[in-house]
């Protein structure tokens, strides 16, 4: 088997606070293969973004990666000094953020923000950096890219700004892109355009992609594999089609019943009852316990990881798989 682009093992990222330790990411392991598109799904606060930031070493203090290993193309990233980390960020692993209104600096021109990204990693002339920036803008479908380089973020619409962010991420043809809900803030038509565009580009440049979203529907349309995250843990993972056809974990089932498109016509949408637990007061054992309709006494102890072929889950009473 070829080496995965990214190999995360037992990653834990904690935020010490006055009221206790927030385990934003709690013993998470996963791999991303070459050219693979992986969707990371979960409710707000489940730890998706922090997982992404942990990989790039961008967790804001006081938070930090407390344990685990992150191997990127075989190279260990945890414990790497900032300087070495900086040569990877933006160059070999790029990230796109959720809110395109906030990710670009309002007082610097788009050109400045692109050119600096080229110059941060490559020793080329300004003119060459500008030419590369222009080409990247053209690549993501921004009309008259040369003029647009001199424009400022407020002169772009939300969708166009997100395209700019994607162009910046593509400047160095990274091996891995982490996209943190890049379409959530956009309206639906723009959302599908950008989804399509990213899928095309990832394919064209043979990039691996981690797509973070709270929307299982979006991930279904895009990803090869899906990982479902709940309360800092990955509770289910597997090939998208397989997971959607036969979800094992009750939380995944709940997520699916909350997608309008996945529920047959006439049947009511069933939102998952209750609220995500406060990260400071998660139930012992399975954190989903108090919202789960299959829970029994044994769920008060932590469920171990179960594996079956390409699938994995953490649940004592998985759906279907028990019967199968």
């Amino acid at each position, binding site marked *: 088997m070829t080496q995965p682009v990214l190999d995360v093992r037992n990653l834990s990222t904690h935020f010490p606070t006055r009221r206790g330790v927030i385990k934003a990411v709690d013993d998470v392991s996963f791999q991303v293969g070459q050219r693979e598109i992986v969707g990371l799904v979960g409710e707000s606060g489940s730890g998706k973004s922090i997982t992404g930031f942990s990989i*790039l070493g961008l967790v804001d203090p006081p938070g930090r990666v407390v344990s685990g290993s992150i191997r990127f193309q075989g190279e260990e990233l945890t414990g790497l000094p900032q300087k070495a980390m900086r040569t990877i960020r933006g160059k070999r692993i790029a990230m796109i953020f959720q809110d395109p209104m*906030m990710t*670009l*600096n309002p007082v610097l021109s788009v050109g400045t923000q692109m050119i*600096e*990204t080229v110059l941060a990693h490559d020793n080329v002339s300004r003119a060459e950096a500008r030419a590369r920036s222009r080409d990247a803008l053209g690549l993501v479908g921004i009309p008259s890219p040369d003029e647009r380089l001199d424009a400022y973020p407020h002169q772009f619409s939300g969708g166009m700004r997100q395209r700019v962010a994607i162009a910046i991420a593509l400047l160095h043809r990274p091996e891995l892109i982490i996209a943190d809900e890049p379409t959530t803030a956009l309206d639906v038509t723009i959302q599908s355009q950008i989804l399509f565009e990213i899928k095309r580009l990832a394919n064209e440049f043979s990039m691996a992609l981690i797509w973070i979203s709270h929307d299982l529907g979006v991930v279904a349309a895009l990803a090869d594999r899906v990982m479902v995250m709940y309360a800092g843990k990955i509770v289910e993972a597997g090939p998208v089609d397989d997971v959607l056809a036969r979800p094992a974990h009750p939380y995944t089932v709940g997520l699916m019943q909350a997608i309008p498109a996945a529920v047959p016509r006439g049947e009511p949408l069933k939102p998952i009852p209750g609220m995500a637990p406060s990260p400071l007061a998660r139930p012992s054992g399975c954190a989903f316990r108090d919202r789960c309709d299959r829970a029994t006494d044994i769920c008060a102890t932590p469920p171990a990881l179960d594996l079956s072929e390409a699938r994995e889950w953490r649940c004592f009473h998985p759906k279907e798989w028990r019967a199968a």
Partner: protein
Amino acid sequence: MSVFVIRRLMQSIAVLVVTALIVFLGVYAIGDPIEMLISHDASPAERAQVILSLGLDRPLWQQFFTFCWNALHGDLGRSFVFNKPTITLIFERLPATLELTLTGLVFALALGIPLGLISGLKPNSVTDEAIMTGSILGFSLPGFWQGMMLIMIFSVWLGWLPSTGRGEMGSFLGIHSSLFTLDGLKHLILPAINLSLFKLSLVIRLTRTGVRETMPLDFVKFARAKGISERRIVFVHVLKNILIPLITVIGMELGSMLAFAVVTETIFAWPGIGKLLIDSIMRLDRPVVVAYLLVIVSLFILINFAVDILYSLIDPRVRLGDQS
């Protein structure tokens, strides 16, 4: 851009006219202009002549017109004491005040921005606490007391620096200033520090707050994710955003510095317009006071205008005229 400039210019002129009206009403309509503008020891013939030349026997609106007409021609009356046009008197003294104010401002910025950055980047560290404590002192100790302490320490006890007067003047590129001789510089240091301590504290706090507010923003994190160096993030991405509030406040404060120069100039016997004002008030030289008010207001307006232009250069979102 030019639309913007023209609009601001019109607004400035409007403000100037309103100010002229207020000063005019204050002197001519509410007070007794004969009392205000004619010296007590003037002979009856002189009185009659001034009344005629100022048109004090004519209706109020005509008087205002004459007042504005004269002011436009640089005629703001004659000083009783010096028997010179007041405007000449003020322009003789203005350079000394500007020199003092600008030196104070440069000092406040050159020291305040770096200290504010240090504080803001390491909040609640020992350095930050020390800087913040210092700035509280700068805020809360009255300016005249600070001035006297400076004189006591550096002139009286240590004998390092002179405490009164402007010192020797030098000339460079046709500009006469005490900045160009060692003696002049020595005389300038204490009053400039005195005048700038309050502003220094203000700049430190503004910068610190700006850093603290800007650092957690998404675009800073995005810049890090692009692999931009921390230095460039602070000095380009963050600082340029902070400059916007800083320039706004400094612009307003520059006006108040000109006005507060009165106190400093009195303490250090600095021969500027502030001292001229105090001397004129003491000697009941009212035309000088009137002229001072008009000149100061004009300077305020000029500064505001300059700030607006600067503002639009730094903040692309302000350039209203350049899109549609």
